[in-house]
């Protein structure tokens, strides 16, 4: 992924991202960018767990919702003014979401594969129902409004949200990278390939899975806090959105599950497209579902590897055909013994 773009290229992208809202000053487009970036952060977070371990979690909408509600409730209870202050509370919301993830994840991770999927879905529904039922805390189906931000004019309004979203996405990306290159991350990937074998070799599978799960909830929770603050209120149906997880799964899958940039690319493309079409074309709800669903199916059937891996595959094939390979030379075994072994070994071929 990042092998395709050298550090210079990445810096250019970063500069572009930072300059974006000034270059394209139209609130319509910056709004789309905010949604896209927040989904990118959430997708990255989801990928840290599901992409790396292979356990498909479909209940992360719960943590998105917890993040949103946490911020709304804090603003309401502590009479926080609209403006910059709520942004400082976003990491706290992430931690609250992570706290919910600990017991829910511990329970779900006692199971595997399909049962695991269903338990994550069930935990989502439980939290959604709680948001309806715990009226004292959540105000039930009426929801809670965020404090108004009157001091930001319409031209300025989107900017802080944009940068908050960008920072969140960059932190999520950095965390993914860090994990991927650490021993911990290798453990997660080993779990994906052969969990029992990984455990047998000393990987602490139980702890690793739970930690990854909690980290992913942390990012999804923060994305939820920022997005709901941007929208201006929290409500059970929208804040706890049952389509969230499948949307995120599609984004990550399209970008290339388990990769670093895949979730971000997938989210940027899909969410932007989704928001844009919602604005441009007044689809009735039925047509919208129909188009969305059909696109889903078309993409999955024709690009089963996801877009980024497919492109990478094509690129690799193209390069291979261009360089006119010579057959790889047959390997020699070790020389006269490797120093640490202190063994006199005969030269053998390692090729089988």
């Amino acid at each position, binding site marked *: 992924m990042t092998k395709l773009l050298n550090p210079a290229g990445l810096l250019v992208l970063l500069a572009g991202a930072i300059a974006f809202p000034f270059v394209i000053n139209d609130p319509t487009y910056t709004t789309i960018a905010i949604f896209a970036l927040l989904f990118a952060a959430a997708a990255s977070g989801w990928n840290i767990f599901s992409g790396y371990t292979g356990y498909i979690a479909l209940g992360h909408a719960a943590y998105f919702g917890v993040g949103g509600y946490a911020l709304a409730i804090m603003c309401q209870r502590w009479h926080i003014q609209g403006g910059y202050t709520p942004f400082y509370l976003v990491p706290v919301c992430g931690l609250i979401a992570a706290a919910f993830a600990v017991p829910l994840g511990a329970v779900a991770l006692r199971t595997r594969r399909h049962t695991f999927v269903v338990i994550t879905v069930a935990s989502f529904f439980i939290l959604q129902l709680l948001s309806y039922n715990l009226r004292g805390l959540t105000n039930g189906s009426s929801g809670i409004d965020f404090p108004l931000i009157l001091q930001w004019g319409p031209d300025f309004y989107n900017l802080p949200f944009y940068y908050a979203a960008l920072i969140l996405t960059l932190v999520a990306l950095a965390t993914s990278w*860090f994990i991927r*290159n*650490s*021993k*911990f991350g*290798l*453990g997660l*990937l*080993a779990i*994906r*390939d*052969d969990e*029992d*074998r*990984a*455990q*047998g*070799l*000393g*990987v*602490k599978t139980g702890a690793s899975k739970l930690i990854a799960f909690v980290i992913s909830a942390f990012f999804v929770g923060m994305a939820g806090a920022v997005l709901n603050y941007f929208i201006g209120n929290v409500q059970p149906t929208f804040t706890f959105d049952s389509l969230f997880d499948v949307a995120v799964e599609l984004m990550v899958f399209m970008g290339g599950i388990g990769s670093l940039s895949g979730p971000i690319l997938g989210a940027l493309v899909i969410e932007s497209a989704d928001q844009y079409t919602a604005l441009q074309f007044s689809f009735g709800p039925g047509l919208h579902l129909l188009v969305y669903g059909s696109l889903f199916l078309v993409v999955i059937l024709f690009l089963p590897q996801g877009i980024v891996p497919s492109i990478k595959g094509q690129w690799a094939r193209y390069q291979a055909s261009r360089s006119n390979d010579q057959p*790889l030379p047959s*390997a*020699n*075994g*070790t020389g006269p*013994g*490797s*120093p*640490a*072994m*202190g*063994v*006199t*070994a*005969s030269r*053998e*071929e*390692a*090729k*089988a």
Partner: protein
Amino acid sequence: MNLLEVKGASKAFGGIQALSDCSVSLEKGKINGLIGPNGSGKTTLFNVVTGYEKVDAGEIIFNGKPITNASPDQVFALGIGRTFQLTRIFPRLTVIENMHVAAQRSGLSGLLARWSQSHEQKRAIELLDYVGITRLKDTPAGNLSYGQKKLLEFAFILIADPQVILLDEPAGGVNPTMINLLASRIRGLNELGITFLVVEHNMEFVMTLCDRVTVMHRGTKIAEGPPAEVRRNPAVLEAYLGD
């Protein structure tokens, strides 16, 4: 001195008695062979020793301490490594990444460190050199040939510095050149003090490599001793031909 002892192990799967009062011992520093017709319980024995199955009865003793029914990671941490008949490596990880999965973790800082810069990297490369697959280090392990996967599995077991290595049919399905390589590596490591238990069907491999051979039949031991003795034992011949 017996490094590893199995005493009276029994294990049934449904109606099938895979191990029946089986007692086997491994002499320290020797290459022990384990042979027997199909279904004699060899792989089940491996599984109960290394924690992938639990015994119904019996004891397993390692270095004088009981390890009966320990979990696979506990067994591995004690210094007993094993390979599988159908190699169990991590196909989507590269060869060098596979090595690092098995490498010992040293606490929290060890886990968070970049694996490519860690101190195990040197050792991992050394071991890949030792089995001769270093050039493949950045290849996804799933793309390796069957023989190369066996070498990888062998190498990553070694990175944990085991005292005992249990090899489940290392010579199965590979060409003679590879078999010779494996044999020489096993001998080399044995000279450094590693004890081996090798399950094999390839009689020549077992007879030339092993110091001692145990024969199993129908879940229990029927003969034990130096290879030459065992191959002449009438009970052994009957077990193989009679069924």
